[in-house]
């Protein structure tokens, strides 16, 4: 386990924790961006260059900007006076802790069955492209359709409603 992994893990988890805890929504969005960047670096550390750069493009480039736009459009930058946490926050915390306990137990219990480190697999962009238009061409088409439908749907949902006469 290299020290780089520990640094990247700390950056990612710290960003995630700050995103969940910070009161100011814009700060939370920036902290989430830090977490996304840390994940992209973890992907690079795992020899998945293409996914790492896709993560930078999609999450830091698109999703983070979209979140900031949504915050500004809904005037979410003002901190509400009656607290930012839900009334049932204790239940949520217990559920999250229980989920982490189960996942951590599953990982630690199967520690000996996990495969050891191997040589880095070569996954060039060329191979990924060939796989995308070969074996995975149907999922690729479906994802293209899904993205088109989602874009059109998001625009229609967020569009200004015309005032309709009341019947």
């Amino acid at each position, binding site marked *: *386990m290299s020290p780089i992994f520990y640094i990247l893990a700390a950056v990612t988890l710290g960003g995630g*924790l700050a995103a969940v805890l910070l009161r100011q929504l814009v700060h939370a969005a920036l902290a989430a961006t830090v977490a996304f960047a840390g994940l992209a670096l973890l992907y690079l550390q795992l020899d998945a260059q293409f996914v790492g750069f896709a993560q930078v493009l999609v999450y830091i480039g698109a999703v983070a900007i979209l979140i900031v736009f949504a915050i500004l459009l*809904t005037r979410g930058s003002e901190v509400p006076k009656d607290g930012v946490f839900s009334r049932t926050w204790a239940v949520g915390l217990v559920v*999250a802790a229980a989920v*982490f306990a189960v996942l*951590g137990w599953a990982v630690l219990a199967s520690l000996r069955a996990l495969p050891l480190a191997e040589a880095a697999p070569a*996954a060039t962009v060329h191979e990924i492209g060939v796989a995308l238009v070969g074996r995975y061409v149907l999922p690729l088409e479906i994802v293209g359709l899904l993205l088109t439908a*989602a874009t059109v749907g998001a625009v229609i949902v967020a569009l200004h409603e015309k005032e309709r006469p009341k019947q």
Partner: protein
Amino acid sequence: MTTPLAGYLLVAALLFAIGLAGALVRRNAILVLIGIELMLNAANLNLIAFWRYGPHPERLTGMMFAIFSIAVAAAEAAVGLGLVIAIHRHTNTTDLDKMNRMKG
């Protein structure tokens, strides 16, 4: 002898738990969406880690799963934030505790 895979899996589990806590604990709908994004990202980290250390990495199965997962997450973010903006326009709030009517 521990494997690097266990470290990545534990980081992913912790990130998933943090995202779940954010989705369950916060009142603002946008923060809940950020929590969901963190959970999706934790799942992607698992997929990439298993692709890297599992058998047959040359078949690219885990990596393809992660790529499609990122695309679906982007669609989810667009539709989710569009819904939040539409609800804010309708009821003038993004507080989930105050959204208790399905009829506008």
